[in-house]
Each structure stands twice: as structure tokens, then as C-alpha cells.
């Protein structure tokens, strides 16, 4: 049961001393103010999906305006800018970051590593509640006078805090406060993830035996702990500029004929701080997706991930390089143009480890035994969309090619494909994959396939043609493109098409939500290991895993996580905690 006592038996040499677990005493401390990472993971995921629905509705409203300008009267330019700002910020920070690290991270780190829980459960609980507070502050901005900020998710000053931008009075203040809260909450969780990975692994679980999911989440967390402080100080300084009239980012400005009381600050400094956070942020979202998709492909193709060690080093290399490419978001920002040589080179170099990852996923399929389960479908969908989005990144990263394309719809198409669609396909794939462990029941496969095909094909139809609008020169963040002389009339037809597909893709998510709720009670019983997977979370004594995860004694790890279809084995998978011969050639 939940109060499983911690084993003192069978301690291997070198194993760490087990501490006493926190034990919940009431329903409230078990399910609400819970310190169990699995409950916290579910709380994080539910909150992220809920706020994600808000972002989905906002995307519908954005597409309504772009596809059918003037059709509804309540979308004016102010509302439009507020929608795109909130959509972007919610998706990047409050959904993707929170779901991958707070959701998948909390659930999978202890279970995949054979730990009883995170090492600091109380701080872990605080992390969630502060995140929830940050979300509530963000949502509150829809209800204050003037509404949420419409500064664009990049929040560039000076416009973010001047009167020409919607939400200047309250919206921007709440946005900055919410970001500061989010970062505080995240840091509490992040420290936990890193320390747990480094200190609480089961006996035998060496770093090079960790599943790639954990490598991805771990590296992403390290990136986040190093990158978010830049956003933190940027947000704090802008808050001071806005509230008490400092001039960190504010030069001498004339607004509507009035000289403002600001002077001497640097707007471009904010851009550096923002993107010093913002670029690693892309990989904070991408690396967990890389890791998870590796495990999905390997499990459902019944084949070891190809080139495990290379995959690990690629994750680490991408993580390190992601800190020296930030200014590729600023090629036309007015910074010293000679920076362009450096940042274009680093940016294109990052393509090499990223390409290796793509090759290795594809080579894992080669001579596999591919089961086209729902998680596998999403994984293949990820390969296609990520490949597409990654390749268009080579346009935008190559400084001079970026010049005509920057701030056009090409950029919008690129980043949606690479860090919107691709990671979200992995999130879906991950949910279909681990839902049976979380609930003990399978998600419905037919609904899952419907959900996959509409989402994947729809997303591709939305974003692939959008690149060509940008190539034509259609700018992003335009409330309407009415009257632009270089835009042919056919573009409005394409925009209407994209919008209709977007409505359909959005509606398809209802199938997903129905599936999540319905299968909770009515799904087919899953058993402990429905996918016949090797990693530790599938070897728990109970499904769903009880408090403390492992019953009386911790698992002992004997092998790497990818022993699928080992020649001579009696089954096509060998769990990590099964003793026996290690195949020659497999990484130790």
C-alpha cells in the first residue's frame, strides 16, 4: 500500500542508505498537498493541459482573424495582439516547459531510475503550488482593466511598457510577476530533478544505463536552471522600469509628443537577456522530446536505439551549444553585424548533433519489428515534423538568408513545426505510452488513431504552406494584410484554408480529452507492462505504482535500457532489472 516501508534488506555494496519517506496522513496530504512525485506529476500535467486549452482557443481566435478578417466584431487589433502574446507565452512556458519537466520529469525520473521519490519532496510540492499560482496570475490578466499584455511573447521593451501597446497598465505587470513566480517554482522542481538523477539512482543504474528520456529531461533541466535566471533578471528589471521608473531598458523616448522620464537604458540589452534564456528554452522543450521519442521508437520497434552513446553525447553537445547561439534571433536587431559570423557558425554547427539524432531514430526503425501502435504513430509524426522544422532552421540560422525571412510567416511556420507541433506530438505519444502505467488502463486505440491522423496531417497542412507566405514577404504579427501591394489575392484563399484546418485540428483534441477521461474508468486493463518494455517503470510491483514505488526493496539494474530482440533470449525484451548475460557489443 501507499505506506510501504522502505527496505533495508539486500543492500548492494556501494548502495546509498535509504531515508525515511514522507507518509501522507489524510486524503488532503495524499492527493492535494501531496509530496509524492507521481501525484505532483499529474497535478502539473493537468494544470498544463488546462492552460493549454486556453492557448488552443486563442489560436482559433487568431486564425479566425487571419483566415476571415472582419468576420467577427470582437477581434480588433488590441485583442489580436493580446491573443498572439498569450498564446505564445502559454504554449512555450506554461504548457511545454511545465508538462515536459514538471509532468513527465516528476513521473518518470524516480520510476525510471529506480528511486522511491524525488530527493526533496516538500520542495517538489511547493514547486507545483507556485507554478499553479503563476498560472492563476497569468489568467487573471484576462480579467483586469485593459486586459492582458499585447506586446508579443518576446515582450520587447520599450513598447511592452508604453501606452501604444495593449495591456500596458495591468497586463504587462501581471505577465512579468507570473514569469517571476514560474521561475521560482521551476527552480525548486529543477534542483530536485538534477539532484535526484545524480544521487538517487538504483544500484547498478549507472549514468550510461539511464534511458534517453532521463538524459533528455536531465540535460533540459540543467539548461533551464542556467537559462531562466536571465529571463528572471530581465523580467525584474522591466518590472522596475514599468513600476518605479528606472531605465534599464529605456533610452530617451518621445511618446505621442511627450518626452518620457526615461533615459540611458538599452532596449537591445533586454533582447540579449531574453534570448539568452529564449534559445536554450527551445532545447528545454526539445531535449525531453528527443529523449522520450527515442524510447518510444525503440520500444515499439522492438529494437535497441541505434547508437546510444552517440545519442547521449548529442544531447549533451546540443545542450552546451544552445548557450552560444542566442543572437541568431537578433541578426537584424541592430546589434553589431559582425556578431553574425560567429552566431551563424555556431548555429549551423548545432545542426550536426541534431542530424545525428534524426539518423539514429531512423536507423532504429531499419530492420526493426515495427508495431504501429498509437505512441509509435506519434513518434513517426514527430520525426517528419521535426525534420521539416529543423531543416528550415538552417535557413534562419544562416545569417544572410535570415535577413529577408526574419519576422515573416516563414519564422512562424518554422518554430511552430519544430518546437510546437513536433514536441506536442511527442507529448501525445508519451501520454498514450505511459497512461497505462499511470492509471492501470489503456487509452482507446481507435480514438487515439483518429486523434493522431487529424492532428498530424492537419498540423502539416497548416504549417507547411505557411512557409511560402513568409517567402513571399507576408510579415508576422499583422492584424490584417489588407492592401499590401505585393500580396496576391490567392493568399486570402490559402489563409482561409489554413484556418479551417486549424479549427478541425483543434476540435480533434476533444477526441483526446474524451479518451483521457473515459478510459480512466472504462479503458481495457493494462497490466503492469502492456508494451513489453525494458525500463524500470514497467517493472513496479504494483500498477499504478504505490507510494514509495518499489515495495520492500529497490530494484537492482543489470543492463542498459535497450535490450530488445536480444538473440537467444526467450522473449523479445529483457528488463533492466533482470540478471543474466550481457550481450557483447551492448554498452555496459
Amino acid at each position: 500500500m501507499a505506506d510501504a516501508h522502505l527496505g533495508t534488506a539486500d543492500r548492494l555494496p556501494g548502495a546509498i542508505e535509504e531515508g525515511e519517506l514522507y507518509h501522507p496522513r489524510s486524503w488532503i496530504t495524499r492527493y492535494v498537498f501531496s509530496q509524492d512525485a507521481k501525484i505532483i506529476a499529474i497535478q502539473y500535467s493537468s494544470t498544463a493541459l488546462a492552460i493549454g486549452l486556453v492557448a488552443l482557443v486563442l489560436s482559433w481566435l487568431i486564425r479566425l482573424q487571419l483566415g476571415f478578417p472582419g468576420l467577427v466584431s470582437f477581434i480588433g487589433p488590441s485583442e489580436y495582439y493580446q491573443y498572439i502574446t498569450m498564446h505564445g507565452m502559454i504554449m512555450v512556458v506554461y504548457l511545454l516547459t511545465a508538462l515536459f519537466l514538471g509532468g513527465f520529469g516528476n513521473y518518470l525520473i524516480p520510476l525510471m531510475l529506480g528511486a522511491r521519490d524525488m530527493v526533496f519532496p516538500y520542495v517538489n510540492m511547493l514547486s507545483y503550488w507556485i507554478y499553479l499560482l503563476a498560472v492563476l496570475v497569468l489568467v487573471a490578466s484576462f480579467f483586469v482593466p485593459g486586459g492582458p499584455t499585447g506586446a508579443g511573447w518576446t515582450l520587447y521593451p520599450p513598447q511592452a511598457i508604453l501606452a501604444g501597446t495593449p495591456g500596458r497598465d495591468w497586463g504587462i505587470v501581471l505577465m512579468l510577476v507570473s514569469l517571476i513566480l514560474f521561475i521560482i517554482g521551476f527552480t525548486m522542481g529543477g534542483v530536485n530533478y538534477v539532484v535526484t538523477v545524480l544521487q538517487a539512482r538504483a544500484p547498478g543504474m549507472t549514468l550510461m544505463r539511464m534511458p534517453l528520456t532521463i538524459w533528455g529531461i536531465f540535460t533540459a533541466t540543467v539548461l533551464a536552471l542556467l537559462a531562466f535566471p536571465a529571463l528572471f533578471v530581465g523580467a525584474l528589471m522591466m518590472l522596475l522600469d514599468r513600476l518605479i521608473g528606472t531605465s534599464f531598458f529605456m533610452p530617451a523616448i518621445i511618446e505621442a509628443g511627450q518626452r518620457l522620464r526615461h533615459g540611458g537604458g538599452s532596449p537591445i540589452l533586454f533582447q540579449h537577456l531574453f534570448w539568452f534564456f529564449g534559445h536554450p528554452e527551445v532545447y528545454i522543450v526539445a531535449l525531453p522530446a528527443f529523449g522520450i521519442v527515442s524510447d518510444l521508437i525503440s520500444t515499439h520497434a522492438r529494437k535497441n536505439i541505434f547508437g546510444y552513446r552517440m545519442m547521449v553525447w548529442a544531447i549533451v553537445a546540443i545542450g552546451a551549444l544552445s548557450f552560444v547561439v542566442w543572437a541568431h534571433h537578433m541578426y537584424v536587431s541592430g546589434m553589431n553585424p559582425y556578431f553574425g559570423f560567429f552566431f551563424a557558425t555556431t548555429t549551423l554547427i548545432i545542426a550536426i548533433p541534431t542530424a545525428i539524432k534524426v539518423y539514429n531514430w531512423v536507423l532504429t526503425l531499419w530492420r526493426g519489428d515495427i508495431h504501429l501502435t498509437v505512441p509509435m504513430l506519434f513518434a513517426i509524426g514527430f520525426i517528419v515534423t521535426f525534420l521539416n522544422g529543423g531543416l528550415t532552421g538552417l535557413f534562419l540560422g544562416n545569417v544572410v538568408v535570415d535577413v529577408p525571412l526574419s519576422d515573416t510567416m516563414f519564422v512562424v511556420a518554422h518554430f511552430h513545426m519544430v518546437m510546437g507541433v513536433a514536441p506536442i506530438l511527442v507529448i501525445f505519444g508519451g501520454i498514450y505510452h505511459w497512461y497505462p502505467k499511470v492509471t492501470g488502463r489503456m487509452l482507446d486505440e481507435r480514438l487515439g488513431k483518429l486523434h493522431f491522423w487529424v492532428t498530424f496531417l492537419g498540423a502539416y497542412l497548416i504549417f507547411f504552406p505557411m512557409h511560402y507566405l513568409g517567402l513571399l514577404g507576408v510579415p508576422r504579427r499583422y492584424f490584417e494584410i489588407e492592401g499590401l501591394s505585393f500580396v496576391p489575392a490567392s493568399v486570402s484563399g490559402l489563409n482561409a484554408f489554413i484556418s479551417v484546418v486549424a479549427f478541425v485540428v483543434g476540435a480533434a483534441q476533444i477526441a483526446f480529452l474524451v479518451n483521457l477521461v473515459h478510459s480512466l474508468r472504462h479503458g481495457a486493463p493494462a497490466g503492469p507492462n502492456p508494451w513489453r518494455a525494458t525500463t524500470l517503470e514497467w517493472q513496479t510491483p504494483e500498477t499504478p505504482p504505490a507510494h514509495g514505488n518499489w515495495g520492500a526493496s529497490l530494484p537492482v539494474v543489470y543492463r542498459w535500457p535497450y535490450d530488445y530482440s536480444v538473440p537467444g533470449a526467450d522473449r523479445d525484451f529483457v528488463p533492466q532489472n533482470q540478471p543474466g548475460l550481457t550481450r557483447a557489443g551492448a554498452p555496459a
Partner: protein
Amino acid sequence: MALILVLIALGSVAFHLLSPWWWTPIASNWGTIDTTLVITFWITGIVFTGIVLFVAYCVYRFRHRPGQQAAYEPESRRLEGWLTAVTALGVAAMLAPGLIVWGQFVRVPADAREVEIVAQQWRWSFRLPGADGRLGAADIRHVADDNPLGLDPQDAAARDDVVIDGDDLHLPLGRPVKVLMRSLDVVHNFYVPEFRAKMDMIPGMVTYVWFTPTRTGTFEALCNEVCGVNHYAMRGRVVVDPEPAYRSWLDRQKTFAQFAGAAGPRRHVSAEP
């Protein structure tokens, strides 16, 4: 699944070749940017099509059938080495021309004429050098009703500058121009799709970009950095004239001295300390 992947790969290529949406006809010297872009399209297009088709093949050929067992093959140094090398080569083939063109982009020709564009919410103003051929000093402190760009009244070089407020910018055909950019309030970006080149305008500093107009005509300019609620409506026009037409247009424009005189007595914008 395999069939749909094939359709995605071929459909994307077909869309690329057949769709009516492509870049605007170029009107500046930056054809090299277009060339670099086309090289990138070729390389990335081949990689995309190749990999998606390969995945389609795997999904078809290695789909699960009863009794099938996957191969056991943890890694292959040789294959991984080759793939890394080929990728590095492909990346270099895009990066090298990119950096060469960027080298031209950042080096302004010595004979480029200076033109200034000043942005504010939500419109453009322009300034051309006067008879002395150079732009005079300017500072946001000097901005007043009769001095919208804040030229320094004490600077002789500024007094003969041509100020264009609320009208189109004209540029001479075939002459390189160095565009100096200022903003009075927030970050803007002056973007003419046909010129390819563009740059942000940052309050508190001067940025620049250069190009040579290669085609006469009237081109639409738009703001390309979100700058507040009317960002989408911040538009202007640039007219490229043959030299004689440009000259006669220039002769009709007012200098700063004339502009200030015509606007009546000098009034400073109420300036807070």
C-alpha cells in the same frame, strides 16, 4: 502509414514547385541572398525527401508480422562517422556562401550615399543630405513641432538637410545607399520585401543597412518589428527613380531650414526633465 509518408514527401516537393507563392521580384543588388536561399532549398529539400522516403520504406518493409524479430545492432562507428562527415559537408556548403554574402552585407561601399529613416509610432520620416552631401547632427532632445526629426539647429550641416515628413522616400536607381536608422519611441523595422535587406530601428542608437536599387518603381515599405497596436498599419512607400527624375524630385523638397521657417515660431515639445 508508409503510403501517407510517401505522399507527404512527394506532395511537399510538388507544392514547392507548383504553388503560386514565391518571393517578390528582386529590386536590389541582393540577388546573392536569393542564390544562397536557393542553395539551402536544394540541400534541405533533398535531405527531407530522402529521409521521409527512407522512413516510409522502413515502416512498410519492417512492419510487424507474426514471427518477425528485429535485428540486434547497438551501434556502428563506421556508419555514424560517415553520416556525421556527410552532414558536416552539407552544412558547410550552406554556411560558406552564407558567410561570404554576409561579408558583403556588413561592408558598406565607400561611395554609398547616406539616407536617414526615422520611425515613430506609427509612421516613417526621411532625411537626405543637403548640398554639402552629409547628414548633420540630430538628437531626440531637439525634437519639436517644427523639427520632427530632432536636427541640431546649431549644426550648419543639418540646416541644409532635406526633411521628408509624411511623404514617400525617393531613391536614385543604381546608386548604393547606406540607410541610417533611428527610432524616437520603440523598436521598429523598415522592410521592403523587394529589397531583401532590412534592419531594426532602436531608440537611443543608430543602425544601418545598405543596398543598391536595381529596378525603378514604387515599393511598399512596412514595419516588421511589433511596435504597438497599429503595427500592422505602419506602412510607407519607396520610389526608385532614374537619376534625372530623382534630381528633379529632390530639388522640389524642403530643407530643414525652410521646413522650420514655414512651420512658424519654434515651439519645443513640452519636455519633462
